[in-house]
């Protein structure tokens, strides 16, 4: 058929890896990491999303067009977050009256 058939073994390996990453993120939340909590949690979440995307959603076996569409969504999300946060985070930098 059209499309790559992912083996049961690969699917279960990915599932186990996702569970390990889940317990890693819960464990990391209890470590005294202070300001590193958020970057670490987001990194682990991104790793899980990549595993799900590549193997459960078959991106690994897909045409490049699908790759472009999936990455474009992240690009737009990045623009949204970067422009919004650049406003809010920089508001206190300059002492401008009436801001």
């Amino acid at each position, binding site marked *: 058929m059209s499309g790559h*058939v992912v083996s049961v073994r690969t699917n279960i390996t990915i599932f186990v890896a*996702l569970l390990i990453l*889940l317990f890693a993120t819960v464990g990391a939340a209890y470590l005294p990491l202070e300001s590193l909590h958020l970057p670490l949690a987001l990194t682990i979440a991104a790793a*899980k999303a990549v595993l799900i995307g590549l193997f459960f959603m078959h991106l690994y076996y897909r045409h490049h067009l699908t790759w472009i569409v999936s990455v474009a969504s992240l690009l737009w999300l990045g623009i949204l977050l970067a422009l919004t*946060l650049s406003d809010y985070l920089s508001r206190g930098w300059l002492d401008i009256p009436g801001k």
Partner: protein
Amino acid sequence: METVTTHRASGPPAAPSDEPILEVQFDDLEQQHEASSVGMWVFLATEVMFFGGLIAAYAVYRAISPSEVALASQHLNVGLGCLNTVILLGSSLSMALAVRAAQLQSRRNLLWFLAITAALGACFLGVKAVEYYQEYREHLIPGWNFQIPAQVAAKSSSLPLDPRRFEMFFVLYFFMTGLHAFHLIVGIALVSVMALLTWRRWFSGSGETQIEVTGLYWHFVDVVWVFLYPLLYLIDVQS
């Protein structure tokens, strides 16, 4: 696909068979499948922006009021959130196996995996309902029965805490998890319809494209939860 396929428009109407129908606008089955798949990915890209608005609002509130967000997050149930993540990851595994069964034309396995996927989705909603009920009991639902918890009110006299920012975390929590739960309800409905159509032998072929596209949606909802769990539940669990 090696076997010869007929266009629906030409020749006699095909008797119910296990061969996929090639619509006239496509060159071959491969292209037809690819069009559906890319179309679903474009829809998912718009869904990223749908959730993106809430995630941007969350990022702003977390950036400008980190202590209130951390304090409010401690009122969520980390254990139930973790259980729900396991359930949802399990449902994604089941959905991936359902797609595999559809590709291999294994109707019986396909029906089983679709049923398991929908059941695990329903389990997730059940656990979510228990959580919402706990938050209702603790008076943490904004606009309905919200009260600043006593220990937080005691702290806010000594610390510079803004109770409205504390409440805003719960507004974001209910909107983000609520929108996610709504997507899951849609997902369960889709999977159930696919299971029914498979049961009725409605698909030409084994419904491989349809099941795979449904799977893409299901996995997307899973990915959203993968981000929501640490962002909402695991902010400050130590204190």
